């Protein structure tokens, strides 16, 4: 039930974002599904006891890989799928908690939450970067193999 709730929430959140970023209409549903699958993977990894930064990294990596695959299949720019695949990982809650604690002069707690949010952002960037690198690696190898 929890997974289903997370999947619906992630789909709605990403779908709204697709319209907000003026993504091409035919990408709205596929890109939202990519974001949903990546987030569900993250949630499953968390429930298996994997730490949040590692789960975010793996979720973003998986999202970027299937995002690239969708972009290639649909002959569309990868930006659409890449940016929407990570929407659900962006640490809005962490950022807000950090600010709320700082406003209450709880500097220690605020700084800890802020640092956690920054780690989450770094993991998203790493996951996306690793995905993009792997795709380029495969493309280069396939291209070299074709020209052999």
């Amino acid at each position, binding site marked *: 039930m929890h997974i289903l709730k997370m999947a619906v929430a992630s789909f709605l959140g990403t779908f709204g974002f697709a319209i907000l970023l003026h993504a091409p209409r035919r990408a709205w549903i596929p890109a939202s599904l990519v974001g949903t699958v990546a987030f569900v993977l993250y949630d499953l990894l968390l429930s298996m006891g994997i730490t949040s930064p590692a789960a975010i990294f793996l979720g973003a990596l998986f999202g970027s890989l299937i995002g690239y695959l969708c972009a290639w299949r649909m002959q569309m720019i990868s930006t659409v799928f890449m940016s929407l695949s990570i929407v659900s990982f962006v640490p809005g809650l962490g*950022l*807000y908690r950090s600010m*709320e604690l700082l406003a209450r002069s709880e500097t220690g707690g605020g700084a800890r939450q802020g640092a956690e949010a920054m780690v989450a952002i770094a993991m998203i960037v790493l996951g996306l970067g690793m995905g993009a690198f792997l795709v380029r690696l495969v493309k280069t190898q396939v291209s070299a193999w074709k020209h052999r």
Partner: protein
Amino acid sequence: MTDRKMYMDVLRLAGETIMENGGETYRVEETVDRMGRAFGLEEVQSFAVPSGLIISFRLNGDSESSVLRVRRGSTDLERVDQVNQISRLVEAGKMDCARALEQLREIRSRKTGERQYPTILAAGLSAAGFCLMFGGAWMDWIVSAGTVAVQQLFFLWMRRKNLQSMMTVVLGAFLATLIPQALQPVLGLNQEAVIAGALMPLLPGLAMTNAVQDALRGDMISGVSHFTQAIMTAGLVAGGALTATTLLNVMGGVL
């Protein structure tokens, strides 16, 4: 119009449209180079940074160059994708220069604002989804969606008055935090879920993606610039939320 001028117009419009609408700088350079080569131009060179674009090429021994200052507009990935489709057609020899110019002008003439109200609804839907993700109940979803709708209407008003600046993000975050906190005593909301949901549409997912894409292709200037933009936007969102929370805490103490 001479051929040289027309080729330059196509390359400029393609690059400018991608950049203004949220595309990566590597994509601008790749598109310009690819289209230039497809037109049979020689020594096509392009240099893009997030705020500008330089293009040069040679045709029949004469050189042509252009420097362009680009100002980012609102994000429209459909336009970026459409320019990309045109560049693919040009590269495949299925579209000539005159047709490409006509199509690019058509893309640019379409106002992003044509879809303002669906955008407001979409932002509300997105906020409601994230509110659910953060543990909100149905009343929280409604308030979160409503708060974002107010925030987006405020952005629309700012755009119409030409008042868009970095302060827009701060004020957006301020509203996203202030409205739920003000309604909290009346409605008994899950304040954290409502506010975090309402802040999500402001957070810089696209800038982060662009930073990664540019940096990975060795374009460190654009990569660092986009990454700074992402961190700065996150900071501004945090600043707006902090201001609203502090203000309400102070008012609560006074009242």
